[in-house]
């Protein structure tokens, strides 16, 4: 049990520390694909260090909510890091929350972020909050539908059980999962403020969604918001890997399988990050009113995955 707790803690610490690196890797891949040299994979760490060394500036009318939000959002993402089976499944905290609760944790962070953006009353904050909610209220149902296909396959909404079923039962092709995977990818792009829904690199304040929400943050608050965003991206990536490529995640807590999990994780993340960068490089940003179409498509694909599973594999 002690070993399990240690691994649980180790996994969370690893995810929190690695999150900026993954974001840096995606940005570096994007730079390479654009024929640029790029600032290097460690750039997010340098930004965080810089921000933590600065003095925070707050808007005059900022309330407690505005100051608390970075910590709440960061806390939500750390909690998600505990729940998602990144290295090993069946860890002590994983039964505490299933995939539906996980969606709720992400939503909690988002609601606070939107409230904080409106709290200071600038035009950009309100605009960003409005757009964020437009994206979110379409992305969340789609995400839930995505989860239902693997949940039906494994007869459980617990991520640990899903990983167990998909990775360690005799290998079966689940066509429904293919649709779910595409839908998940689309939700990932929308939820993490990536192209084609939002542009994480833009300086054009009128086009921003996520950036408009954090426009008034500075120093440690901004650092936590950035770090939380990095964590969210990594959480989505590891969640996707757990659902659609679970091989390598340790099933039992013993030396060899943990080493294997530790070896598999960077490889899988590197491939996932490069694929994400490629996808982003190839796409232009959608007009904001195309975002609902994009997410409706994700929802439809997820439903299709569910139907495919029910029709082909029967309501077992």
């Amino acid at each position, binding site marked *: 049990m002690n070993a399990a707790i240690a691994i649980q803690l180790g996994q969370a610490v690893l995810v929190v520390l690695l999150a900026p690196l993954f974001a840096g890797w995606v940005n570096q891949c994007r730079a390479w694909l654009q024929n640029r040299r790029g600032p290097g994979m460690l750039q997010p760490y340098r930004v965080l260090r810089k921000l933590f060394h600065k003095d925070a500036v707050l808007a005059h009318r900022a309330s407690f909510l505005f100051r608390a939000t970075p910590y709440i959002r960061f806390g939500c993402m750390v909690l998600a890091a505990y729940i998602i089976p990144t290295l090993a499944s069946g860890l002590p905290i994983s039964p505490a929350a299933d995939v539906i609760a996980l969606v709720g944790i992400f939503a909690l962070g988002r609601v606070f972020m939107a409230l904080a953006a409106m709290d200071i009353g600038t*035009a950009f904050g309100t605009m960003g909050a409005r757009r964020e909610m437009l994206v979110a209220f379409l992305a969340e149902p789609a995400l839930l539908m995505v989860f239902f296909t693997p949940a039906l396959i494994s007869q459980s909404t617990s991520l640990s059980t899903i990983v167990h079923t998909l990775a360690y039962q005799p290998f079966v092709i689940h066509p429904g999962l293919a649709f779910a995977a595409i839908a998940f990818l689309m939700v990932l792009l929308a939820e993490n403020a990536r192209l084609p829904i939002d542009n994480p690199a833009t300086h054009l304040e009128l086009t921003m969604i996520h950036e408009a929400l954090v426009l008034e943050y500075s120093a440690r608050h901004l650092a936590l918001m950035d770090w939380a965003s990095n964590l969210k991206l990594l959480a989505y990536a590891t969640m996707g890997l757990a659902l659609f490529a679970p091989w390598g995640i340790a099933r039992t807590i013993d030396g060899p399988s943990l080493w294997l999990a530790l070896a598999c994780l960077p490889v899988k993340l590197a491939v996932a990050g490069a694929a994400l960068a490629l996808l982003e490089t190839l796409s232009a940003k959608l007009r904001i009113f195309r975002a609902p179409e994009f997410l409706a498509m994700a929802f439809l694909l997820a439903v299709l995955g569910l139907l495919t599973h029910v029709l082909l594999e029967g309501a077992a």
Partner: protein
Amino acid sequence: MNPETLTIGLNPLPGAIPAWHGETYALKWDQTAQRVRGHGGFLVSVWGSDDSDRGQGCAMHVAYAASGALACLSLPLGQHRTYPDLSPVYPAAVRMQRAVKDLLGLQASGSRDTRPWLRHGAWAAGEAPLRKDYAIDGAGTRRSEPYAFVPVSGDGVHEIPVGPVHAGTIEPGHFRFHAVGERILRLEARLGYTHKGVEKLLETCTLDSGARLAGRISGDSTVAYTWAYSMAVEGVSRIEPPARAIWLRALLLERERIANHLGDLGALGNDAGFAFGLTQFSLLKEDMLRVNESLFGHRYLMDVVIPGGVRGDLRAGDIDRLRREADTLGRAIAALRAIYDEHAGLQDRFIKAGIVTPGLALTLGLWGLAGRASGMAWDARVDLPCRPYDELSVRAAVRRNGDVAARVNVRFDEVFESLRITRLLLDGLPGTAICTPPGQAPDRAFGVGMVEGWRGPVFIALHTGAANRIHRLHPHDPSWQNWPVLEHAVMGNIVPDFPLINKSFNLAYSGHDL
């Protein structure tokens, strides 16, 4: 339209382009405007001057372009402080007249918009910095005044103030949006944040030293400004630069056009979220700027064009190098154009965004690059050609859709046309001399210069003073006409499309704010 149809005595001005000048009186002032408009001519610029040091009062001046000639009119005001309003005939005159009010205290009588334009409160409402009795080192008020934006009300209408400080390192302008949800109901721009008193400073210059300052009015159009300035100086001095100098000037102007278009094409891709375009086009632009640096000594070609000719010549090896550069550029841009054209996501952003219909463009006087994207087929290189453009049969790039895609396509077309012209210029570079120094210019002479910069026609009006000095110099950027049209272009579009539409116009701040 012949200048005779204006029924005013006009005299031809010596210089590189066909231009006429004459004096008129208040009754004829707006009548002439109507007559010019009736003949399809359009407004180039409105400016004022203070001639009190000559024992006269102030004067108003206007320049029109019509059927292959410039017609300039002066209206001596004597002791009057008002003149007839031109804005009912030419809506573009509104802001120019407001600027005249700010700088010279001359008021267009009956004008509905009496708000200041360039004056933000740095000098008091009654003061006029361009008056001869206003000290150039005056301390000013060091404060700013509130500005009365046009109020908009209605159910669900909200205001979004943007700028003058932006999230990126871009120039200062304030944009006041009124939106319903994401849809833009109305946009009002406020400019003047980069007002530096260039016109006042120019009055301390000689005709020689003024060239340097003229080349810094709008840094991205330095060749256009210095050429237009030199054209005006050469006109009043009645000299003609050597043929080689003129051909080299055209070469420089086309290089400036290509470099700016490349930068814009990349930025347009980037603003639509396609960063790949930015890096590729920036690379091409940077290579060009480095060639500029090594051949002409300045990346943006500042101070290469001087009154009387150019500074810096090309050797045989340089010409080969520029030919190879043109070939490489042509291939690279053709490949990138194919990528832009075939990218569905990018075209979805470009097409039907920020439409200016040809009818609206005609009414409001849109011109230059943005005008040609809305069917206004006017290019100074074609319709008011100075040497060497009269020998090059330039083809103006014209589109009629008036959306962002049209402005992108005009840029692509113009880049290819400029490359074609570049090759012609390199092949036919005549003579050996590159400069004929202009002698002493006469006092109280008037000269004009106009060349098609990359953004549109750049116009310079020069009133000389004694001892080869500038009495009054008015530089006019094409952005004066085009800024108000931007406000119409974004109506009904969504707020997040504004940066893209704005970039597709890419209008000047410094050249406008002076």
